[in-house]
């Protein structure tokens, strides 16, 4: 194996290890990884541009669909920026409800991650167990908001649905089951030999590297960097609730697992406090249709790390610019670093360990030239010309049709 030649294998855009299309080109020597090339862009949907074409109210629902799992994170982050520009004082009951939904979302995201991680290391039993338990929190979310993923809870100036005392009881009942199950997972993660063998020492990212590469969320916290927007720059109701920022010194995939599983326990704690201290009052304040000119940056601790939204308003009912920096974009740089000199077998779990969400992250389309391997950016006119040429080579001539079209456009 040691004398085997170097070769490149593609992991993605379609590959069983990836839940979303993303390209990783891995240079291998035997089983050893020499280098990884990451290619984003397969899932780019132009949401930022689309947001500029819609009103703020429409944008909430559009931005909620940036990500299927952290939908509440993105919509809350966007709304916080808009509220800041408009100078709205959101009622505290609404803030508490946002916090509860946010933490329920974190629970469902982390349980989902635990299952995916299990699958990546070939431990399907863990996948089946944690996804079964995830149904508990999914049911809670569905009963509060009416939906399992895109909750539609947020509106500018508050939330759209209340949590009744009966629903609060239901949540607490569900949390008890989840807490018991989570204790079991902590036990598994810290005792099961094959899991520890596959996770510890894999995907090492030192504290210095975290600071240098600007990793966020559990990836950073697992390397001992106490970085959590909920504590550093409290939003929603986090300032009034007490919780610990979980960190770990392991710096590897194992540490990231431990951090996530322990964060689940913190989430239960936060939800219990929030439900206990849920203040009375209105759910929303009246928000203007036209947001005054201004700009704001909003930070939010999504399950995967810090989510940043920038909104620029120009006094109309549509934003002038919306910019989203999803947590995966901050973390994906670290993956390359983590994979250096590791084995091919570690690749899926190392990628999974940052809990990537590529659809949130994807930016623009870049075309790669196969032969020389260089990246080339093609703009719209040249892509158009290329497609005409491509069809002409195959016997379909669009030139005449194109001329007619351009004449009509010119008129």
């Amino acid at each position, binding site marked *: 194996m040691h004398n085997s030649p170097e070769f490149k*294998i593609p992991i993605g855009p379609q590959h069983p*290890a990836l839940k979303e299309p993303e390209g990783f080109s891995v240079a291998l020597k035997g*089983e050893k990884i020499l280098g990884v090339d990451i290619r984003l862009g397969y899932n780019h949907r132009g949401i930022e541009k689309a947001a500029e074409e819609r009103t703020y109210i429409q944008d909430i629902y559009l931005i909620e669909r940036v990500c299927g799992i952290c939908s509440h994170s993105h919509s809350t982050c966007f709304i916080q920026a808009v509220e800041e520009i408009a100078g709205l004082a959101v009622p505290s009951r609404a803030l508490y409800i946002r916090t509860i939904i946010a933490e329920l979302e974190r629970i469902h995201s982390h349980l989902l991650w635990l299952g995916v991680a299990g699958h990546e290391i*070939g*431990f399907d*039993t863990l996948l*089946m167990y944690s996804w079964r338990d995830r149904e508990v929190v999914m049911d809670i979310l569905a009963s509060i908001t009416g939906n399992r993923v895109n909750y539609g809870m947020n509106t500018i100036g508050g939330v759209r649905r209340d949590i009744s005392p009966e629903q609060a009881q239901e949540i607490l009942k569900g949390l008890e089951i989840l807490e018991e199950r989570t204790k079991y997972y902590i036990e598994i993660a810290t005792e099961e030999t*094959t899991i520890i063998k596959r996770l510890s020492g894999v995907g090492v990212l030192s504290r210095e590297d975290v600071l240098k590469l600007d990793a966020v969320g559990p990836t950073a916290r697992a390397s001992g960097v106490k970085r959590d927007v909920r504590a550093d720059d409290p939003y929603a109701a986090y300032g009034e609730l007490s919780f610990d920022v979980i960190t770990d010194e392991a710096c590897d995939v194992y540490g990231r697992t431990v951090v996530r599983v322990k964060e689940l326990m913190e989430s239960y704690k936060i939800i219990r406090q929030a439900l206990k201290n849920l203040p009375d009052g209105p759910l929303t304040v009246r928000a203007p249709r036209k947001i005054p000119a201004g700009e704001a940056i909003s930070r939010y601790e999504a399950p995967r790390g810090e989510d940043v939204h920038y909104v620029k308003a120009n006094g109309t009912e549509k934003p002038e610019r919306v910019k989203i920096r999803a947590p995966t974009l901050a973390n994906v740089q670290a993956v390359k670093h983590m994979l250096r000199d590791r*084995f091919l077998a570690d690749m*899926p779990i190392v990628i999974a360990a940052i809990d990537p969400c590529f659809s949130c992250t994807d930016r623009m389309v870049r075309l790669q030239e196969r032969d020389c391997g260089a990246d080339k950016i093609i703009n719209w006119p040249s892509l158009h010309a290329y497609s005409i040429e491509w069809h002409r080579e195959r016997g379909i001539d669009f030139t005449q049709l194109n001329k007619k079209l351009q004449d009509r456009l010119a008129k």
Partner: protein
Amino acid sequence: MLGSLFYIIVFPGMLFLVTFALLAEFIDRKIYARLQNRVGPPWFQPLADFIKLLGKEDIVPVDSSPKMFKIAPIFALASAITAFLYIPLWKTGALLSFKGDIIVVLYLLTLPTLAFFIGGWYSTSLYSRIGSVRSLTQLFAYEVPLFMGILAAALLADTWSLKGLAEFYLAHPGFWAFNLLGFGVALVSLLGKLEKVPFDIPEAETEVVAGGFTEYSGRMLGFLRMTLDVEMIAGSALLAAVFLPFGLNVNPVLGFMIFIIKILLIVSLIALLRTVVARLRIDQMINFCWKFLVPLALLQLLLNLILKGVLLK
């Protein structure tokens, strides 16, 4: 002549073996599913899968060597089925038997892995190549403890034939209990041979898609999957014959039932083992085999040498 044909084609040859293999696959999958809190497949699912695969198109990669690519699955299935013919089922003798048939059975059970390697290598896909190299690398790790575990039992009986082995343990009831350590070693090694978790490294789907099987489709994939099922039965039957040699001199119907129960017990153990562990990395797998399984197998050999000197003098 007709009799031999019946033996080879119907019982205990292909037809019986294939049916039993599909049943075993169902039981394996059902237990695996129930342990994972799932419902699991209905009883006819393996058969339905097999029939579906037989009806699908066979795609041969352009760059591959078509002859090698096509012959590997048939070769693998044939050798797994042949291996079964040498294993005694409910009496001491097998359908075919001669001095030294243990070696032949072990050899025939090694061939499918080589066929997987050849098929994967000649399909020229990168995933297949990595997968097939992995299955060969793995072969050198699990094969040694498996052989040592089985040969330790044979050493105690002082024979190289499965018939002689069965006769010895029939004459010395209770002696099989000395080989339990070897049974454990051989069972874990068998997981490697069958490419099941934690040793499913050659076909780890999150790394190399389906390893050597990636490019296979249709009938040939059906044969490959059938090979793994038949190998599971043949491997379990070998383990049952070597390590659980009891209930051999009862009447055929009862003996047959005991045989089925023994096989299903081993299949259930395999399902249980693969439920509770994660997949190892290839380097960890080789370390595990050489550092734990081989010393344990050596211990079994040593134990049997001492027992032979003390008890059988």
